[in-house]
């Protein structure tokens, strides 16, 4: 048995590893995607004061601390039986919208765009953000940096800190904003809407007008018929901050729609001995292994799955783009993994529009930002849509509000099984007897997982370049026979 270790990805060394086993004829026998890390938040949260959880759990991820801070703060609302004031709720969603603008911008331009703008077979040295800027113009590169920086300013102004905000409390937030700050936020929001529209135009020009790419998006290799998960508001429109979790099958039928408190009826997690990460699945459908289809409980929680699970977008410009996307892709749901990039841009526009709406809300500068809880804390669940998937925080406390039990189902974890299957399918389709393994081929395997923006890779976000890969092929006796690498 031959063995290919895609030792991922330099930056994932120690944080992720793909091994491909080949049959004697050179076709793929099996693929394993391991996550070799555990930090143990679910245990060491025990004994902590509940109100410290928004700041403790955000240290799970330095790229999306805002998502953990928010899910945790919402879990505290539930735990202390207190609703945030209307202004506080809006401030939370405002910060969260600014966060989505930065996060989706970074992913699209730095991770996704190089494959399409430069092409999957472009030399690795050009297939990065610098290449993208070279091709689409320095002005756009400047706009990317500007939008990120400005929205980080919003996060610090509203949340207290640029990384790891501190403003979340049960029943509200710690700080109000003044008129001057509001006006600046509104200005940034306007720029963000224009920037999102421009980004969709770039996608249209570069990807959609290129038949090769469109064919690739619609190809079987990058199609996966799994369930779709996403948070929706009372009108079944996409919402990042609040609502119910809706799950829609690959056939478009609603499987369930659940409130945060009901998550245990719907989600279970499977343990495999060869990885530290668990595999969540839909409990009522059941675990049938790493397969897709209506009978398999594997689901996705990604920008595309959120759009698939919803009936539309809550803002007008994003709704137009939503309609356009589905008419191009041949209707809902779209099971094309690569269309996730497109869905992310529709979400970017929605986040920017939402930010603008909230910045103009007369209540946003209200100083009525705190409700003081008086009920005895016991149990709380908070759910938000993190950019990389539905994020669930569940706490049980004693009557003093000290954590007794903590359970977390984190963004990327939702997608572990689906991600693994996408990698496996791409490997099976591309690594075939007699086919020489080239860098372009490896990049196509990598393209199968990039749409998920796995948080194992989150830090790449801020840097030029695609994920560097190294593939080493060993013969049955463990001798190295071929080595390929790609990088910046």
């Amino acid at each position, binding site marked *: 048995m031959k063995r290919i270790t895609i030792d991922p990805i330099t930056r994932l*060394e120690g944080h992720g590893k793909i091994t491909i086993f080949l049959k004697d004829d050179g076709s793929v026998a099996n693929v394993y995607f391991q996550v070799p890390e555990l*930090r143990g938040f679910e245990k060491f949260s025990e004994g902590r004061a509940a109100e*410290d959880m928004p700041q403790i759990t955000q240290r*799970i991820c330095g790229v999306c601390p805002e998502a953990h801070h928010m899910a945790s703060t919402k879990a505290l609302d539930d735990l202390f039986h207190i609703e945030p004031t209307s202004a506080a709720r809006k401030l939370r969603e405002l910060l969260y919208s600014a966060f989505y603008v930065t996060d989706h911008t970074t992913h699209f331009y730095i991770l996704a765009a190089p494959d399409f703008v430069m092409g999957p077979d472009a030399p690795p040295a050009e297939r990065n953000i610098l290449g993208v800027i070279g091709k689409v113009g320095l002005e756009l590169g400047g706009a990317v940096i500007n939008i990120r920086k400005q929205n980080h300013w919003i996060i610090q102004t509203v949340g207290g800190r640029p990384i790891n905000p501190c403003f979340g*409390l049960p029943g509200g937030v710690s700080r109000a904003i003044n008129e001057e700050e509001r006006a600046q936020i509104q200005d940034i929001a306007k720029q963000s809407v224009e920037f999102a529209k421009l980004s969709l135009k770039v996608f249209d020009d570069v990807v959609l007008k290129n038949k090769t790419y469109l064919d690739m998006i619609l190809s079987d290799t990058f199609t996966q018929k799994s369930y779709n998960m996403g948070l929706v508001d009372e009108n079944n429109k996409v919402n990042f901050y609040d609502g119910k979790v809706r799950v829609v099958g690959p056939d478009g039928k609603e499987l369930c729609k659940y409130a945060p408190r009901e998550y245990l009826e719907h989600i279970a997690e499977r343990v495999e001995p060869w990885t530290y990460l668990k595999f969540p699945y839909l409990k009522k459908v059941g675990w049938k292994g790493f397969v897709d289809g209506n009978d398999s409980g594997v689901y996705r929680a990604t920008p595309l799955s959120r759009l698939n699970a919803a009936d539309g977008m809550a803002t007008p410009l994003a709704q137009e783009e939503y309609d356009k996307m589905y008419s191009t892709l041949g209707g809902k749901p779209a099971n094309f993994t690569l269309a996730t990039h497109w869905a992310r841009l529709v979400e970017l526009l929605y986040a920017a529009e939402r930010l603008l709406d909230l910045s103009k809300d007369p209540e946003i500068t209200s100083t009525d930002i705190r409700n003081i809880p008086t009920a005895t804390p016991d149990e709380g669940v908070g759910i938000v849509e993190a950019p990389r998937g539905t994020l669930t925080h569940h706490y049980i406390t004693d009557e003093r509000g000290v954590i007794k039990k903590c359970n977390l189902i984190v963004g990327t974890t939702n997608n572990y099984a689906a991600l693994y299957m996408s990698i496996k399918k791409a490997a099976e389709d591309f690594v075939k007897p007699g086919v020489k393994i080239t860098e372009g081929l490896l990049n196509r395997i990598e393209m199968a997982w990039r749409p998920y923006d796995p948080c194992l890779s989150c830090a790449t976000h801020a840097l030029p370049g695609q994920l560097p890969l190294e593939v080493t092929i060993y013969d049955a006796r463990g001798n190295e026979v071929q080595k390929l690498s790609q990088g910046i």
Partner: protein
Amino acid sequence: MAKLKVALYWAASCGGCEIATLAIHEKILKLAEVADIVFWPVGMDFKYADVEKMADKSVDVCLFNGAIRNEENEHMAKLLRAKSKVMIAYGSCAYEGCIPGLSNFYNRQMTMERAYVETPSTDNPKKILPQTKVKVPEGELELPELYDTVKTLAQTVDVDYFVPGCPPEEKTTWLALEALITGKLPPKGTVISHSVKALCEECTRTREEKKIKKFYRPYEIIPEPEKCLLEQGLLCYGIATRGGCGALCPIANMPCTGCYGPVEGVIDQGAHFLSALASIIDSNDPEEIQKIIDDIPDPAGTFYRYSLPDSLLRRARIK
């Protein structure tokens, strides 16, 4: 002048320090003029083997973030120490153990049981735990071994400088980089920050005499906007925390939680905070003092939020 050779590495961390390194924004270009990055797994395609091939002390500076949590973290710390002239513990995890260091209140078995067996969403009737070596039908797969105790970088290798913060603020990062670029290096062992004093020194809230009759939890009161948070009964850690961040949390009406580590000369931040608190409790009656202290719901996790592995306690003893 030859360009500086810089290595960056992340061990057990969240990626926040990587983001913080990049938060120097346009100064990155200035850095690029004077430094070459020779190893940065997050962003560049260099492998462990490339580091092994480097001559000893051929790297000028290594910025190391993340705590030491498994055998791979330890291996890389030792390897990079050997190759680097200057080793910097960058960020609270490498410096003091930080939030993941709270794991030292428990042990590996308890952590694994919780994650893989006990959690209510986990469906694992056979109680399978991840293994360091697993036979699968096609061959064998390996995972690094998780350690029982989280360690700091300095508990693993010799460290020259420390950069505090979870994560370090932009200006703190730049202070460290500037020292390296100009070659004006402080004495070995220095904690690089704009302040050696307590955070209170740079906090703009007004301070009077501190006398506390009762501690409040942050959700219980709406603090007055201008007045010292500790004087209002909120457990603000600024009194025992190194300054340099600009008092960001107090500006947002939230107490400092201590992420910049101890002030200059203090070994155990938690003990320092506890003794500082004891001196401002407004009572001489031991029973009343006890009652006031009892209002703190999680003393160990509050006093040692970021520094348990680096403290005199290091870890809890598990019976």
